[in-house]
């Protein structure tokens, strides 16, 4: 009879997952901390320089600049995605036939990789042959030569818009299922009290979606913190360094400038920020509820 004791079969079952995760995820994460104290190009002999990379990263302002840009992107992404996703999710939760059909189309951008989306949008935004500028020219708005991604004041906003284009459908799917779980009786009671649809939205839908709002917020923030693929393709951090977010900066330091130490400093910052955000996840989304369930078993 098998109890709750460990036996050799169970140790064997545990081994592959633990080994893979330990060797290729956990240990590298710790090694990154060590690398951040090295002066190393990845090939020749490394020398230990202590906190030099850390102080240097903040002295020359690049790391702070990237950190600031990352926060800016996180805020932009939240502002662009969350309210729109919420309304769209409420819309998709309706039973009307056309809403269901619309929902089928909304989902399609999620099938493409970030690089595929990035390449497509850089053509759509192309100042010479792109869809947007030629359309604007045709209807007579502006001169139709705006270089959306080449303008340092616009680039970050445009990047955030492209990210929103891909991920709003994902978030609205979360909202859609959130809305579907709200008991209909709440709305019926509100109707009896004479509340209109707008009142019902603010007094029932919105409060009932509290946890969905927290979930999407955390997903958007953690996702944007390390956002890399699309920016690499669309602007490569430019023009200048106007879209050089942390992940981009890290990649360039480590794999273009071959400065493993400086890249690792940013990697550690990313990991720390990721952990900080995930503590928020544990606090709000109920992953910790699962652990307390475990106490009971």
């Amino acid at each position, binding site marked *: 009879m*098998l109890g*709750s*004791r*460990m*036996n050799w*079969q*169970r140790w064997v*079952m*545990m081994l592959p*997952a*633990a080994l*893979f*995760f330990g060797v*290729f*995820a*956990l*240990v*590298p*994460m710790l*090694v*990154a901390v060590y690398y951040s104290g090295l002066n190393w190009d990845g090939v020749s002999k490394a020398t230990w320089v202590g906190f030099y990379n850390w102080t240097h990263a903040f002295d020359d302002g690049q790391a702070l600049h990237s950190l600031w840009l990352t926060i800016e992107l996180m805020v932009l992404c939240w502002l662009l995605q969350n309210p*729109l996703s919420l309304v769209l999710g409420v*819309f998709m939760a*309706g039973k009307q036939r*056309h*809403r269901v059909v*619309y929902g089928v189309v*909304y989902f*399609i*951008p999620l*099938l493409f*990789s970030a*690089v595929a989306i990035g*390449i497509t949008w850089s*053509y759509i935004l192309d100042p010479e*042959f*792109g*869809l947007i500028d*030629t359309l604007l020219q045709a209807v007579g708005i502006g001169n139709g030569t705006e270089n959306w991604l080449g303008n340092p004041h616009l680039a970050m906003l445009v990047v955030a818009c492209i990210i929103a284009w891909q991920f*709003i459908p994902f978030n609205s799917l*979360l909202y859609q299922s*959130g809305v579907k*779980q709200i008991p209909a009786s709440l709305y019926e009671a509100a109707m009896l009290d004479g509340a209109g649809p*707008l009142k019902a939205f603010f007094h029932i839908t919105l409060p009932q979606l509290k946890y969905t709002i927290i979930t999407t917020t955390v997903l958007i923030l953690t996702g944007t913190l*390390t956002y*890399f693929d699309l920016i690499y*393709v669309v602007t490569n951090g430019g023009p200048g360094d106007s879209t050089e977010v942390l*992940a981009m900066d*890290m990649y360039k330091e*480590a*794999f273009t400038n071959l400065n493993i130490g400086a890249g690792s400093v940013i*990697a550690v910052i990313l990991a720390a920020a*990721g*952990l900080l955000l*995930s503590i928020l996840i544990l606090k709000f989304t109920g*992953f910790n509820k*699962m*652990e307390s369930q*475990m106490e009971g*078993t």
Partner: protein
Amino acid sequence: MTEMGTQTASVQRAKVRPNKRKRKVTGYGIAFTTFGTIWLIIAGYPLLYMVMTSFRTQNGYLIGKPWLPPSHPTLSNYAQVLQAGFFHYFLNSAIVSVCSVVLIVVFALLLAYVIVRSHSRTVRTVFNVFLVGLALPIQAAIIPVYILINKFGLYDTLIGMILPMVAFGLPLSLLILVNFVRDIPNELYESMGLEGATDFQIVLHLVAPLSMPALVSVGIYEFIQSWNNFLFPLVLTQSQSVQTLPLAIVQFQGQHTIDVPVTMAVVLFSALPLILAYIFAGKYLRRGMLVGFGK
């Protein structure tokens, strides 16, 4: 469905219908539909642009109106995609994704079973470490992973991409499977245990079949993750023979910057399995994508 069932269903429908008919076309309804339609255009038109452009001739792209369908549609761009060796990259992507998914799902299920069925402090600690791992971004570990894969002599190989992909796919899959396996009733374990089944037999004949819905969802999620992964091939490979699709598209685009129609064909080709899956099994794909994030 039995005849009885159909009957009750139609009776229910008949009851609901008069209600539905009473629903007025309100101002809010119109505003909502307008909003939904605007987003339909925003979401759908770039996709249409992708498809239209992929059937354009190079000349048609340069002189035609980009918002209209091509006047002389052509398939030559797709022929060029295959000539450029994209079937090979497609195969690489398929190998990497399928291997990653199989390993992730099997490893995660085995560990999930141990976590649910054993009360051991070590097991508990391992689980907690995985939960923390949920928070650790791939980007933060990519530099040491690069050095490590080099040391193992796996740089520029398919296996070199699969190994870290499995490692980073494990935490979320594990979390979902633990939740699922925990819901399997205790009596089922006990009756199998009484018959003298070993742990491996229980996983194979009880846990795996019962967890099938969760395994499918987790598998789909991880497949999409690895199919679209860009960072690992970017950092861990250099030769064309081992490139997967996302990196191959970017390199192709770099060499054919002006040939937009062909690049659009490449982009569509790279998403082909997911597009087909969406057409034929959209329900499962949606469920897989939302796995772990919503109910």
